[in-house]
Structures are given as C-alpha cells and as structure tokens.
C-alpha cells in the first residue's frame, strides 16, 4: 500500500477535529509550566514518553488487527480522567467520519456501528491506518507525532512563539519519536501473544488533573 497514506493521516490538516485541541498545553500555559520554547520542549518530551507512548501502542495494536472493541476498553482503563475520555471519544467520532470517507473499510463501518458514541481516537487512527494498508509502526508514528505536534501548534497560537522554533523543537525530538514509535509497535506485536496488558500504560497524572480543571474553565481557546 502507498506510504503516502501515512502522510495524509499524520497531516495536521486531515479534517478530524484535532485543531481545536491543545493536548493539555493550554492548561500548562495558564499555570506557567509552559512559557517559552524550552519549556514547550520539556512538555512535549514528557507527553511523548507517557500519553504519546500509550496512545501509540493502542494505535499500533488496532492497525495490527487486535479487536478494536477490546482495545477501546483498554484505552478507557488507561484514561482515568473523565474529561480526557470524553475528548478522546469525541475526537474518535470525528476521526471516524474522516477515515470512513477517506479509507473506506468494513472494519471502520463495524466500529461505527458498535461504538456510535465514538471509540477512543487512537483506535480509530489505527484502524484507519489498517484500512489504508499501513503497518502498525506507521500507525504508531502518526499517533506519536500528533501527540506532540498538536500541543506545539497550540503553544504557538497561545504564546505567540516563533513557529520556526516550534518546528525545530519537533525536529529535535525526532530520534525520541522514532524510539517511542518502535517501542509501541513492538508492544503491539507482543500483545498478540501475551495479551492486551503487554501494551504500554504510561500515564501523566498532572495532565489528567489539569485536563479536569481545564474542562471546567468558562473561557478557553481549546476544547482540551
């Protein structure tokens, strides 16, 4: 299958709703934790190795043919904050709409029927990659990249950072993105024999807490 499908899936312009979410960076900016390029890089690195790794494992497993409904339950178990569960399912619905139109497949249709309120977004992303004929590691890359690309773009808007600095930051994280995507894909392979618990379950409690606080704000630019 065409590798170009990966570019399409990973493109921030893929119309699946991601532009309205900051990946927790709006709350981090409000708390002063992210205030310049260096602190944004630290935030992205932390997210990459926690939420990013976990999401990439789920996406890779879905792309590898794991039961998406079991993976959806596993995603719930790995997402304790209700605000983040809601955001993940909302984004999953939006991704499903885009994926069904872009990479039609019986598996995506089945998921839409089984989860009318939406599955967690990484599961849909993985199934979309599968429908496009991509490999589990490709789905992992798309999930990881989105996990830090989204916050970086949001921080540029929130802090008026130089966008060139943000691009440089994402490039510097490249080798770590490689490592995380490979680890996620490896875990997805092991999960086929060892079961779903082999998938990463790294979490970032501060992101969970600030996501709950952010969801209660009355004035905000981003949905999460």
């Amino acid at each position, binding site marked *: 299958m065409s590798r170009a499908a990966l570019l399409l899936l990973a493109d921030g312009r893929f119309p*699946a709703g991601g532009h*309205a979410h900051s990946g927790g960076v709006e709350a981090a900016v409000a708390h002063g934790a992210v205030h310049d390029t260096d602190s944004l890089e630290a935030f992205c690195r932390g997210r990459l190795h926690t939420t990013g790794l976990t999401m990439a494992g789920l996406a890779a497993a879905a792309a590898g043919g794991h039961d998406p409904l079991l993976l959806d339950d596993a995603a719930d178990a790995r997402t304790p904050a209700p605000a983040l569960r809601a955001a993940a399912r909302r984004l999953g619905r939006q991704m499903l709409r885009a994926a*069904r139109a872009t990479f039609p497949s019986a598996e995506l249709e089945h998921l839409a029927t089984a989860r009318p309120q939406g599955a967690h977004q990484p599961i849909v992303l993985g199934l979309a990659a599968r429908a496009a004929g991509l490999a589990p590691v490709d789905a992992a890359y798309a999930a990881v990249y989105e996990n830090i690309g989204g916050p970086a773009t949001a921080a540029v808007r929130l802090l008026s950072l130089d966008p060139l600095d943000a691009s440089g930051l994402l490039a510097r994280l490249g080798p770590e993105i490689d490592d995380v995507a490979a680890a996620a894909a490896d875990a997805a392979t092991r999960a086929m024999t060892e079961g779903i618990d082999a998938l990463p379950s790294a979490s970032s409690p501060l992101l969970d807490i600030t996501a709950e606080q952010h969801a209660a704000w009355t*004035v905000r630019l981003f949905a999460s």
Partner: protein
Amino acid sequence: MHLGHSLPHQHIPSVSATRPDGSRRALRVGLGGPVGSGKTATVAALCRTLRDRWCIAAVTNDIYTREDAEYLLREAVLPPERITAVETGACPHTAIRDDISANLEAVEHLEETLHPLDLVLVESGGDNLTATFSKGLVDVQIFVIDVASGDDIPRKGGPGITTADLLIVNKTDLAPHVGADLDTMAVDAKRQRGDLPVIFTSLTSDDGIREVADWVTGHLAQWRAGAVV
C-alpha cells in the same frame, strides 16, 4: 484498497440531503462575518420570527467563550437544548471551512435529538472577510457586515462578501452617525456580487429582520420541496 468501492451504510452525511430514513434533513444556514457585525443578533431575530412556524436549532462557534450561546440562552430565543456551542481552537474559519467535523457533530446531534428539525442556523465565530462555510457543512450561507465598521468593506470584497448567498449590511440606523454612505455600499456590493442578493438591515427597528426572514423562508420552502437550493 479501492476507494471507489461501495460499502453498506457508506455515506457522507454532510453532503447527503436526506436522513438515513429517507426523509429530507433540516436546511442548514451558515452565518459568518466580522466580530461585532450582528451575527448573533441576526440569529436571535431569525429565531424569534421563524420559531412559531418552523422547528429551529442553532450552533454557535464562539472563539474563546460561550458568550454567543449564552446570549441566545439569555434572550430565550430558543430552549437550551436547541443551542449548541462548538469550540474552535483559536481558528473559527478552520471549524467552518477546513475541518468541519466538530460542527457536523453538533448539527447531527441536534438533528438526532430534536427530530424532525426544519432549520439549523450555524453561526461562525467573528472572523475576517475571507471566512466562508464549507458546502459540506451548510446548504446556504449569509455574510453579515455592518455600516459602522467602514463603508468601504463591500468595495474590499473577499470571499465572504463576493460569494455568500446573501449579504446583510447591518446597523443602517448608525449610518448618519458614522458617516457611512449606504448608496456607495450598495453600488460596491452590486459590483462585487453581481446578481447575488444584498439586504440592508437595522435590527433595532421593529421587524427589522423581516426581509432576511423571508429570504430564509424562501430557501426553506425550496429545500423542503426537494429543489436544489
């Protein structure tokens, strides 16, 4: 992968003019335009005028608050369950044009929970003169400007001014106070838009929305008759 092959239930809801049960879905009307031009006031006035005859719901795209949704709630132009606010991540034009998924979610949720709806008004966040709605999101779109922001706006053009199905020039009552020349605005709008309609409104006057309401009603009648709007 064969992108062209058909699958059961495969459809693009945004484009389809019918509901899954085959009945015609609600007409979706987009309202865009710069900040402060009177989009929310127009939505409120349309709701008040048309709600007794048609079943209406509204989606707002506030930029960073729920102000517009709350205005509609406070003014009680529609019951709360008929108003949904969409968050746009600092990019209101993206949410109505480039990535319409959140707005489609909102529209479809209203359609499902308030079935059968006749009309859904989708109000954009305040934006610039280039903001237009995707045809995947709305069936017809209205662009709202006002005389107090400068009577040269129609001359400046931009996709919102030139291509909207209806251009509203609001706050005509303020024209004498801000030195706006309505005749010039009308001539410039005509030059930019050709035969596309332009309506001058003053929503502070009694029934100031009437002409716009008639325009919407006309489109709604065509839509319900199954004609191409």
